[in-house]
């Protein structure tokens, strides 16, 4: 394989791992989901690199697209963030306006 191919692959997988870690470490749900969607799109790119165009199409449509939309909907439903411990009592029952993002 060419060295530019290698460079691209390594950059791609490094970004993938970084996005995965960021998506899971992020406290704000909305941000977490957006990072995950970005992760999904890069995964689709990786499938192209691995000569798997069928999977790339499915990943973009289903993996990133539908899953992303479902996650956004769920994040909106559970409005808010995964609060750091301990939760402050006055934050309980906070009004519906604290949607992140």
């Amino acid at each position, binding site marked *: 394989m060419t060295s530019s191919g290698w460079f691209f692959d390594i950059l791609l997988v490094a970004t993938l791992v970084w996005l995965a870690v960021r998506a899971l470490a992020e406290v704000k749900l909305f941000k977490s989901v957006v990072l995950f969607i970005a992760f999904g799109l890069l995964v689709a790119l990786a499938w192209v690199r691995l000569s798997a165009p069928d999977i790339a199409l499915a990943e973009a449509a289903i993996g990133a697209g539908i899953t992303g939309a479902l996650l956004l909907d769920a994040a909106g439903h559970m409005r808010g963030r995964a609060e750091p411990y301990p939760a402050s009592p006055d934050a309980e029952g*906070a009004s519906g306006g604290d949607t992140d993002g």
Partner: protein
Amino acid sequence: MGKVTAKSPIAVRVAALAICAGVGALLARAVLAIPETEPGLAPLVDANLAVSGVKNAVTAVLLNFRGYDTLLEIAVLVLATIGVLSLSVTQTGTWDPIAAQADPVLSALARFLAPVMILVSGYLLWAGEHAPGGAFQAGSVLGAAGVLLALSGYARPIWVSRFALRAAISVGFVVFLATAIGEMLAGGLLLEYPADLAKTLMLVVETWLTVSIGAILISLFIASASPAEELRRRSGGGE
């Protein structure tokens, strides 16, 4: 109301780290030890591609050689949809009129985009025979078009009938199953496509699968729409 803490206790994290380190080491060793010479089943797939009825090897595996996997996979999808509907507040999957209040910009966009998306979906379905594409990709695009129409208020009347919704969700699985059983009645085995009909039958199955997958995606969104009471309670109602 209770908030969710962001982190687990330190003991849990240390234990999790130990488990992950173990699994990671095991996995890394294992994947690096995979022989580079094992050809897998690729030669066998190649040898039989000509009689499979399609030219795309992945489609041949999915719909013909391992069509049984795909049949069960559709069952998973239908099952998940029934599960989601059983958890939704209305349980019917009918679109709530309040949630469907259309935005003029969105309607204009939908009017333009939906026909294009339906065309793309048709292309992906047809292309799956010889190039990347197929029922799932086509169905997702169709579903996206439906969600767009539903959000802009157009699709509502279609989904009000509960039976129509149920029929659309299950039609792909039912047609796939009927084809499979038809082959048994015709003297073959389960999912044994007669060579001359293979291409046609697979296209029929894929077409209905596309419709079902589209309907399933739309109903997943409809089912997840917040129920009327909750929307009213949040007097803002803007969401």
